[in-house]
């Protein structure tokens, strides 16, 4: 065996070891992406699994406890059931009607205990059409909050 081949064999074995290492960590480190319906209907199946799901935010369901820093809300998909979510954390930016909320966490007795809550705009870097924009509403929201 030539020197060159020996070195390459040695290095290849090292690479193989690293590859095996990261293939084996794969399932444990992942979060399964499940639809809300699937999650609500098959709660037993996903018990203990770290799950990621997404849906539209129901703004009326938001309950925010500022003293305890606890956030409760529901997300839903059109024509499907809704999922109650409990999160120990603050509201992310853009937490409003018709925003897609991505949550990651565990199902716990019918309630989804989220460890991570993120919002996604339908088109992230494009503004809304100006016709939909209500300047008065803005001012009102702003003033309401300030009082």
């Amino acid at each position, binding site marked *: 065996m030539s020197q*060159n081949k020996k070195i390459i064999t040695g290095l290849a074995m090292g690479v193989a070891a690293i*590859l095996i290492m990261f293939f084996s960590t794969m399932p444990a480190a992942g979060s399964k992406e499940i639809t809300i319906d699937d999650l609500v209907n098959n709660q037993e199946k996903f018990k203990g699994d770290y799950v990621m799901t997404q849906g539209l935010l129901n703004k009326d369901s938001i309950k925010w406890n*500022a003293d305890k820093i606890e956030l409760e809300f529901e997300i839903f998909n059109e024509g499907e059931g809704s999922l109650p979510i409990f999160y120990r954390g603050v509201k992310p930016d853009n937490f409003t009607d018709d925003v897609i909320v991505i949550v990651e966490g565990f199902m716990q007795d019918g309630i989804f205990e989220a460890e991570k809550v993120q919002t996604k705009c339908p088109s*992230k870097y*494009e*503004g*809304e059409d100006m016709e939909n924009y209500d300047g008065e509403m*803005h001012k009102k929201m*702003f003033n309401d909050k300030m009082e």
Partner: protein
Amino acid sequence: MYLIGNIALVLGVVISLYSLAANIIGIRTGDRKWLESARGGVLSLVFIAAVASFLLFYILGTSQFQFSYVAAYTSQNLPMVYKLTAFWAGNAGSLMLWTVLLCIYAGMIVFSKEKRNPMIPYVSSVLLINILFFFTVMLINGNPFEMTDKIPADGKGLNPMLQNPGMILHPVTLFMGYVGLAVPFAFAIAALIMKRMDAEWIKLTRRWTLTAWLFLTLGNIIGAWWAYVELGWGGYWAWDPVENASFLPWLTVSAFLHSVMIQERKNMLKIWNVSLIILSYILTLFGTFLVRSGILTSVHAFGDSNLGAYFLIFLAFMAMISIYIVMTRYQLIKKDSNPIESYFSKESSFLLNNLILVVAAFAVFWGTMYPLISESVTGTKVNVGAPYFDKVMAPIFLALILLMAVCPLIAWQKAAFDKFIKSAIVPLLMGLATAFLLLAAGVKGLYAILGLASTVFMFGTHVMEFVRGIHARRKATKENVFRAAVRLTLKNQRRYGGYIVHMGIAVLTVGVISSYAYSSEVMKTINKGESITIGHYELTFNGLSETTRNNNGIVVADVSVAYKGKAIGGVKPEKIFYETWPEPSTEVAVKTHWAQDLYVVLSSWETKDKVTFMVKVNPFVSWIWTGGIIVVIGSAFALIGGRPAGRIQPTSVTKS
């Protein structure tokens, strides 16, 4: 103006087609006139792309809302700097930026001092194919000069997240890096087509590759800084698919920069180098495809469009051509490659470094693509987030840092083991001392301590290299320390520039490891006059007020800060109600200290006197930016003064 813009795009397609044809005819017939004509074509492409870009800047700057691009990304009240930088806020403008950079680069090459080099027509052809692709895509699918049906009174405005100084530099630097990789790729392909298997293409493109790498680095660092101050982006690095996409070519180019040194000096690894640069170039297209297609869930993704499909087709086309060319030249390249002589030599340590970097790139690629792979295999989309990357990348990077620590000490060809130990002992002890000090100070986390100690070891060997070099020089020349240091570095800028880059990486690594392992976070709702304690900091909330800036309503919390009981001023976290955006956006307040950042977010408020804050203390974050700056300085240094390595004697101090 609509006319000028669109004519420019059409001309872009026509002229790049013509120049490509002229090049091919010129190469076939050997007729200089055709080649001259192609060169003229490239020059006019530079002109056209420049005119189109100035036009886009002009319509953005003067708010001509009859253009849909202007109406979609800017508004009347947007500050001028963001009106102009909206150039690259959307798909069409990003394509324009890519095109203009590509044209400028092509122009620089065909008019460089190498313009008589027979390789150049091939190189310019490869670049022209790229230019043709971009002009065509703009014309069909991303025309920045498209008109609106009805002229709106005002535009939609720029997404608040993009209204950040990062917007000015991050996209441009990253694109300069991306586009820059097309040049060494074109040279590699040209060399292969011409069956020139020497290292000429590497020597000619060293500066291009290094510049591209420098801009990629800069782009990523600025991007990290931007993501750090933007609340929704999950910190300076979140292993988001789009972030990974720009990290992938960085990893492969880093590998390439090292392995070409071996080809330059030793005539080895030819196939490897060609493959690496092709891979890096393909990865830039792949990254663009990921960002534009929306096939993966990302917080940085652009709005859905079918641009992704075009990039995928182009990517497949370029990949197949490249693979075909490499395959047909395989035997030829292999024929005159030299073998490696010893396990324990700079050559094999470089080879190992390459393998680690490529494995790292593969691990990142695998994790990024895993949702798609798992969906096609098992039907369930499994997202591997940060936990996967942390687990997998930590040992890989640890190995890389350790290798960087020993690499400068290993001589070319065959290194002597006892000499190696002699020069490694001091830095190694420094590393061990760091570990002991951290343990003694009660710092937890074995991995982090291991990482920090290795980084100090790595930093130490590089400092020792400088010290040894200066010492040797002073012995010979009797210069003072400072003069010797400067002269030494200037005399071999490539080598010491590289060392400076490594030292910058060390500083950056300290920042990453400590901020990752030891950051703390508190969320609390408090009343006026109350305070929050985190680490050595005490924050007191003094009240909420409102102001306006650029017509946007702003709510500001006034918070005073004390560090270890001593008042050190205040922070003012904000919520900005953008005129053109339905929801307020958060403006983080950061107070930087060399050892940690205080990171304060005004989360929400119940009344004017009762507010919820999120406060973080992130240790050593400023080291990340400092390290990044050192890396950029080091690579600029290696760039400016570097002569091809062939003319310099191999100068490892440990060499016997």
